[in-house]
């Protein structure tokens, strides 16, 4: 027998975006069914680096990111766990005068968004962070950015939504979806059929297929960051570390393990990814340059994930251009963990009133669909 469900909002994807949307919608009183083909938060939302960072984002994202910052500040009351979230500060170092100038220019441009960026000289870096190895000509510090444990945070959003009455269906793959003119009809095999007024596309790196299904294909590609973790080490690094220009990032979890990431692995199949040996070796090498004290440490585990990138590295957040009632939230270019909870709230706003107080015009899907032959700047 096929189980029939009717609800206000159906959500495809139980990552941090879909789960936080489910939570926000339940708080507004909407009935919600969330369909997750695996386990909530088991993909990029749960296996990412764990950076909770505003610094470095394009200005277009900072209002959204700031909204997320406020949500992160209320994490325990919202999802019942602090998820090891620490406002440790985020330090981005520059290795050349040009990089330093870029950091300074960013600080100027991003004034007014409340990040309170502080420029640090090479001497100050050495003084405050003697464990920093690579020669840095300076850095930019964002005191209230930080890091968290994605394994704990993302599933907790789904559990909070569940406790608020959302219908969370794990291991439920959506096999067919249509809008029949009145409502959305989603099916998972012959087991479940869901009818809803609204549909949220929060399917992460796999969201492109949903958009294409509703006639608005986007040029999204997948990327697979290399992640690795050390055995627990004595605490020495109380912040999250990045490098202008990218390439490597590192943090030390409260347990003492250093989590490092960078470069790119490869797709094992459509669903799974792995670090490649070359990329892993590059990441280890770069980490030792950045943090020489790890030279004698050990890597106990490595992994990767699958993240969706659009050509302009901006996400798609907002209404569908083809199907009323469909809203998208995907394509975060490897930086969705921090803003995910705000995107969930924005999607809930859109369901509730068709608008949101957070500017999202830059993330419209129409930037890919309104041109016959779009030319993308990479």
């Amino acid at each position, binding site marked *: 027998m096929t189980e029939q469900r009717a609800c206000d909002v159906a959500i495809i994807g139980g990552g941090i975006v879909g789960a936080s949307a489910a939570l926000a919608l339940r708080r507004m009183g909407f009935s919600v069914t969330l369909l997750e083909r695996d386990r909530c938060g088991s993909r990029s939302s749960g296996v990412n680096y764990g950076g909770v960072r505003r610094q470095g984002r394009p200005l277009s994202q900072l209002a959204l990111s700031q909204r997320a910052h406020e949500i992160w500040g209320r994490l325990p009351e919202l999802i019942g766990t602090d998820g090891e979230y620490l406002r440790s500060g985020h330090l981005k170092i520059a290795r050349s005068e040009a990089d330093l100038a870029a950091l300074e220019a960013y600080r100027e441009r991003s004034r007014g968004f409340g990040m309170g960026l502080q420029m640090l000289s090479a001497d100050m870096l050495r003084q405050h962070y003697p464990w920093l190895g690579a020669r840095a000509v300076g850095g930019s510090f964002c005191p209230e950015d930080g890091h968290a444990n994605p394994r704990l945070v993302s599933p907790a959003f789904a559990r909070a939504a569940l406790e608020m009455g959302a219908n969370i269906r794990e291991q439920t793959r959506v096999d067919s979806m249509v809008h029949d003119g009145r409502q959305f009809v989603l099916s998972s095999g012959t087991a479940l059929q869901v009818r809803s007024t609204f549909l949220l596309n929060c399917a992460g790196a796999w969201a492109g297929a949903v958009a294409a299904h509703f006639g608005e294909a986007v040029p999204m590609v997948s990327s697979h960051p290399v992640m690795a973790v050390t055995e627990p080490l004595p605490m020495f690094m109380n912040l999250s570390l990045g490098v202008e220009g990218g390439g490597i990032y590192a943090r030390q979890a409260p347990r003492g393990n250093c989590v490092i990431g960078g470069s790119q692995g490869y797709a094992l199949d459509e669903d799974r990814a792995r*670090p490649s040996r070359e990329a892993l070796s590059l990441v280890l090498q770069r980490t030792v340059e950045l943090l020489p004290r790890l030279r004698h440490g050990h890597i106990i585990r490595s992994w990767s994930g699958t993240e969706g990138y659009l050509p302009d590295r901006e996400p798609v957040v907002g209404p569908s251009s083809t199907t009323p009632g469909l809203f998208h939230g995907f394509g975060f270019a490897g930086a969705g963990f921090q803003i995910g909870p705000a995107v969930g709230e924005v999607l809930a706003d859109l369901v509730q009133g068709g608008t949101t107080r957070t500017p999202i015009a830059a993330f419209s899907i129409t930037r890919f669909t309104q041109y016959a032959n779009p030319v993308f700047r990479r």
Partner: protein
Amino acid sequence: MTALTKVVIVGAGPAGVRAAQMLVRNGLRPTVLDEASRWGGQIYRQPPLNFERSKKTLYGFDAARAESIHSTMNGLLAHVDYQPDTLVWNAEGGQLDVLRQGQTATVPYTHLILATGATDRVLPLPGWTVPGVFSLGGSQVALKFQGCAIGQRVVLMGTGPLLYLIAYQYAKAGAVVAAMLDTAKLTDQIVALPAMLQQPTVLAKGLYYVGWLHSHGVPLHSGVQPVRVLGESRVSGVVWRDGQGEQTVACDAIGIGYGLRSETQLADILGCRFYFDDLQRCWLPERDDVGRASVSGLYLAGDGAGILGADAAEWAGERAALALVADTGGRLAPKDSARALMLDAKLAQSRRFRIGLERAFPFPVHWAAQAPDDLVICRCEEITAGDLRRTAQATGTVEMNRLKALSRVGMGRCQGRICGVAAAEILAHCTGQTIQAVGRLRGQAPVKPIPFTVSEPPALGESP
């Protein structure tokens, strides 16, 4: 078979050595990678070069087999590319990643025989993290490799044939075996007798050990439930329970083991399909009767793909090598074709014998129900049984990888190789599921920890 065939064998225990021998006999020159510094595997582990003790002292009844494996490999050295002290920590795209003396390298292959062996299957009991508690296998390694005992007055506990073998070896070596505590009941062994008659010589060996231990006054208690290890900074004794209530025996070291656990991570990383083996109560990589895995070009031999014991490992190594030769277009000599048939028969017999052994020394299925909340399950991350139960209950977790993500169990240096068995038992019990239903931890590289600085980082052209 073409000149492009490049065979790599991982492991130089009984399965790996016999596989190498058969490949060489058929004109191949395999590479043999082994984590140990000398060949022989765990069971026929050799002492360091400067130790000189007789094979009879080291291996007892198995001296002839040990000698045969050792001398076979010795004779093969000119015909294989033997790389000792080599950890295979990852595999990708037809190449193995190895770590040797702090350097990583890759070893290409077209065909791979995994003979990765096994380690102890351990179930914790309160106090098991006190210094002086070893695994049964570890206790045996101390004796074979270092020529020392884990203590002067030793208790050996758990279940499985190794329990009796090691008790015998310890007593022969002059240690006081204060007690053997077997969680299996004598009735289990009696019921298992018919199946064990499949390999009467092995059975006879076992009976000899039991008889010898009995006649030398080594106390054996069957059907026990281990309660706790005594001692703070060092083991001082162990408490167990049986029909007569709680009992205590004083000792300064304990060896624990509940049979063996196949080392399957590499097969997992290589993409092998796994199945749940009811008999051995664990997930194992699929292999056909001759050792072919579900991945083309990959063969599994020995205890690394399901426990069948050292003799069967030799046969499985030979058999997999013969299958490989045939699969690569090689022509088996008539005597090898005949040998293949004989090996098939011996392996089938071993599988029947195994059914008897598992009956004789059954896994203590009630262990999880009896594990107290404050019992440490994961030593690396200090996760208790109570932590696991609370996590499962608070989060609705029913699956092992999710339990790992939420509780940290299996996230430490051992990556679940030691604690995974016990954690799965706890999760299955507290969620009312079968052990099969909770799934298995996914294998992730590195198979064992690897150092950051595998080679000096390139100079940055800058001063510190």
